[in-house]
Each structure stands twice: as C-alpha cells, then as structure tokens.
C-alpha cells in the first residue's frame, strides 16, 4: 500500500514551516513501515486522482488569493474527493480559502472552495503570539498564532483545541482568556497554529493518519523507536512553552 497525499499549492501556501507538516506525515508513515507519495496541485498540471489524503498550508493573503483563483475551476473535483470521505488537513490561510467565504477588510467577499463548514472575516488587527491549550483528548497542544481573521464555525463543526493562552479562532479576542482553536468535522481537520503544528503535536498527526488509514483500509500503528525519540523531544518542547507562558 502506498499512501497518496495531495499537497495543494505548496508554493503559494508554504510560509510557516509547512513542509514540516507534510514531512511529519510522510516520515511517521515511513517509521511505521508504510510507503507514501506526494502529489502536487498548483494549477500547472492536471488535478491528481486516487488520493488518500489532502493537505493545504498557510501563507500570505496574496498567495492565498492567487491559489483560490487557480483552484476555482477545479473545486468540484476537490469537493467530490471530500464527499467520498478522504481526510483533509488545512492550516492557516489554506483553511480560509477552503471555507465557505472570506470577508475582506474592505467589505468584499471572496467565495471559498466550500470544503470546510466555516467562514473567515479578515480583521485589521493582527494576532501574533505563542499559544497552548488541550485537544479533545486532553493532550497538551502548543503552537504559534500569526493571523488576522476571525473564523466562524458552522453547524456540524467543533473546535480542535481549547486554548488557555494565545489566539485561537478569533484574532481579536483577549489572549489570556480561554478560546477555541481550529475545527474538526467528520473527515476534516483545520487549525491556525504554526510550530509547525504536526511534528510538535504528534497526537494530532497520528489522529489524522488514523483517519487516513481507516478510510483507505490499512493499519497504522506508531511503535517505532524513531517516533518515540522525536515525540519525547516534542513533548518537552510543549511542556517548556506551557511552563514559560504560565509563569
């Protein structure tokens, strides 16, 4: 079995260590003895077929707008992938363009690809801070928020993480208050934390990979020594951040 990832717009949306997120997925599969392969769609070739999982990363608004324009004629192909249950992981502005719509600060509304049950309202304020919180299983989750949009989740979607410090789905909320971050809804997962998110939070990487395994019908069990070393470091990195922010 070779797992086929589709990486959308790696150039236009590849700003905050995004290579690290996809590398993390590929590396963890490899540590578990499973081969994988990354297909790219950025408008220059045709839309790849037979995809097991989709990944899109963060970038600038200019990059995202360019990506959205390119994606528009192909969004039905992406939507039909999603309807068959293929897991999608979207981060930062990648999540915004895969939502229903983006309201710009001048009031204009861009039509999103409509994959995620959410929309974004761009803000003039910028949120930029380290964050920590806990995911639905209660595991410490950390990252760096750097965004300027409020994310609204629609029915059927719930937040991925509850933050205790930093900025979640709202760029304008009080950073010291609890806040919701990210989204989960059936086969969809989204967040706005950098780090990159997955290598620093392997519990989220494994949760996504388990969804991919379930959909594509293979077994994923992470018992490698390499993963245990990497995850040990990541756990200490998260703990250090939490301690520092809690002081």
């Amino acid at each position, binding site marked *: 079995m070779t797992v086929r990832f589709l990486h959308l717009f790696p150039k236009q949306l590849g700003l905050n260590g995004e290579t690290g997120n996809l590398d993390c997925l590929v590396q963890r599969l490899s540590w578990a003895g499973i081969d994988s392969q990354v297909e790219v769609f950025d408008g220059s070739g045709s839309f790849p077929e037979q995809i097991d999982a989709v990944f899109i990363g963060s970038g600038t608004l200019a990059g995202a707008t360019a*990506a959205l324009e390119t994606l528009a004629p192909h969004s039905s192909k992406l939507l039909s992938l999603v309807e068959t249950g293929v897991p999608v992981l979207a981060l930062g502005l990648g999540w915004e363009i895969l939502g229903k719509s983006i309201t710009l600060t001048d009031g204009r509304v861009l039509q999103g690809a409509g994959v995620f049950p959410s929309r974004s309202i761009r803000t003039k304020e910028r949120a930029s801070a380290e964050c920590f919180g806990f995911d639905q299983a209660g595991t410490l989750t950390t990252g760096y928020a750097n965004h300027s949009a409020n994310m609204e989740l629609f029915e059927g979607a719930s937040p991925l993480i509850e933050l205790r410090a930093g900025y979640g789905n709202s760029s304008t909320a009080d950073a010291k208050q609890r806040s919701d971050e990210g989204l989960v809804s059936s086969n969809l997962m989204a967040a706005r934390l950098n780090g990159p998110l997955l290598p620093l939070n392997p519990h989220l990487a494994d949760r996504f990979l388990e969804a991919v395994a379930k959909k594509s019908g293979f077994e994923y069990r992470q018992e490698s020594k390499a993963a245990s070393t990497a995850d040990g470091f990541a756990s200490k990195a998260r703990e250090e951040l939490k301690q520092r922010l809690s002081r």
Partner: protein
Amino acid sequence: MRLFLAVLVGKVIRSIARLRGGGSAIPGRIAMIIEPKLLQKTLGSLKHGVIFVSGSNGKSTTTALVAGTLSSQGLKVFSNPSGGNMPQGIGSAVIGQASLLGKLDADVAVLEVDEAYGEVLAPFIAPSIVVLTNLQIDQLNRFFEPDRVYQMLRQAAASATRAVVLNGSDANLVDIGLELTGQNVSQVEVSKKALAKWPEGALAAPRFGKDRADNSIPISVTVSDELEGIATLEVAGKPISVQLPGKGLHFAIDTALAFAVADQILGESFDLESASAAISTQQTVYGRGEIAKYQGVEIQILMMKNPSSMRATLVAMDDPETNIWIAMDEGTPDPSWIFDIDLTRIGKQVRIVSGSRAWHFATRLSYAGIAVDSVAPDSKQALAEYVSFLKQNGKRGTLLTNYEQMMAIRKLMGFLDLESGK
C-alpha cells in the same frame, strides 16, 4: 548645550554599560530623551551625507563592506556596529564616536537600518543613498507578511535624496526600483552562471498576484562569478577579482552593492584595486563565521536568523562533518521555518542543542534523521559540555545560533564588547 549634555550623559552611561557587557541601545535612548535631535545635529551635515543599508538579510555585512570600500578610497566613514540598527542603537554609536561638542569627524555615514525603521528615521536624517540587499522571508511574527516589508523598503528607498542601489537578482527589489520616480536607481546584476551555482544566495520572498515588469534598471555592477570565496565583479566594464569575507553568492552580491555605492559617490575616481585589497583583509562581521577562541578551543560562530540566512550559512559552512552545537531561544518567537530548511549539510549527528528552544530544535533534527547527543537548555551548561567535548576531541567546533543566544554565549565566553565584536 542640550547636545553637549546628551553626548556627555550618553558617554558616561555607555562606559558603564560596556563594563557590564551589554545594553548597546541604552546610552542612545537616554541621550535622545535629552536631545531628541541628536541624530540630525550629529549626522546632518556630513559631506557625502548618510547612506542607509536595509533589507532582510546581509545588512550588517553590506554595511561593513560599504564602510570598508569607502574608507579604502580615503573617505572618513562613520558606521553603526552590527545589529544596532534602530534609532537608539544608532544614537549609541554616534555618542561613542562624537566629540563632547557633538562633532563627528567623518565625510560620510553608513548606517545599517532595520526594515521597519527606514521610514521612521528618514524624516530626521534624510539618506543621500539607500542600499537594498534583498526581501526574503524573515521575522513573520513581527512583519507578518513579506508584502508589508515590501512597503517599508519602498518607503525607505523613496526617502533617498540622491540615489538607490539595489540587488537586481531579487525581483521584489526590482519592482521597488521601477516604482521610484525621484531617485537615480541602479542595480547590481547577477550573471546566470553565478545564480545557477548558488541558488541559496538569492532567495527572494515570493509575492503573488503581481505582474512583473521588465527589469530596465541601469546596471552599475555585475557579479560575473563566485568561486570558493572569490568573486569576479564588473564595474563600468572593468573586471575585478575580490576575496570575499566568506564563501557564497550572498557575499559577492553584498560586495557588489558596496562597489556600486562607491561608484555612485566617486564616479571615475573610484579605485577598484585598492577597494578589492581592502575587502580582502576585512574581518567577518561577528556571527558570520567569526572564530571565537575560548579555553583553548576554537568555535566558529554562524548565525541563523531566518530561512534564507540559515540556508546560505549551511551551504557555505566549511566542514559539514564538524562537531555542531545549535543554540536557539525565544528570541526566535516562531521557529516554524526551521522545518522548511534542508539540513543535509549538518550530517548525521549534532553534539548539543541548547537554549529554551532546544527541545523544539531537537524535534526538527529527529525528523531529519539527525541524532542529538545532548539537549541542554541552559547555555552555561551547554558551553561547558561543548568545550570539554572539543578538548577531548581536538577538533574545531561550529555553533549555529540565533542572534540572542549568540549574544548570551559571547558574554559567557567573556567577550564584553558587544558593539564592535572584538
């Protein structure tokens, strides 16, 4: 009177600060409270004016090269030391060199200016020439998006009263140059041959949704080639070979920018041979390959500030199999970019990772299949461990570090003069 008081108080605070080994912006900050026009009054009347050097990477090196090139032509040059590139830091440097009456004995000032401060400084001291090194991905936690930095650099360039010299291999800077109307704009051109050899030396931040216009900016200096730290440049049709401060295309471009400035100021009387000779004896700006001698071992210090500087550093690193120490703390607020860098040059093993980001960096290294021998968040402990390892091993070490850890570790090694890097 105010100027006198400002310089006097500044000088006293500066000598105290230097004994303690830190705080290079404080004397300037206090002097500028006493005399808000400190910079105008000291820098405002120099014969060849003030030159701003700005951009994402290579500011310190280019500033040192412009200063070195102009000195080689007999000009008296005032310059701010590496890293002190905000108004208060520049104020501190002015205080260090001005007479008590606030006079600077200089023909020209060459100032490294932070991207965000070009437009802040310009109303006080209008630059005669603005030099732009590049627009690369840097400090997104602070600048958010490269598009914002573009606007900052454009503003800074537009404040030049005379000329703008830019790196023509960076498409963003070419766009800025083409937008300017009131300045004499010229560029450093990089040959296809040189670019093909060193793609890491010229990494422009991507900007999207912009139509690129033709690059019609007049060429002042061409980088024809770079080979093992020796650049071949062409200035007004004349070829010249220069021994660079280090290996890599970025050093060749920085040197070409310095020559373009000298060409702009001196025209036909610019003596290429003496400029080349001066550059070849110039010392590396600290953190860009400086070799620190400490307790009988040698540690080469290489700084990694952002993806472009780290890529360039890794490519130019002397011995990829050297014993590496990596140090990073929260001075790098969002280290996500370390996951975007190809770490092949590091080899299979890193001796020590230190600083508050040690665990974060160790995670990165594990995903690259690089073994980490020791993680020591405390710099002092890491330094002791590393030195004892090098002593047993008898090899030179390499420290890859962010700016803040570099300062902290230099201080631990007893290098108190943080301003000049000696």
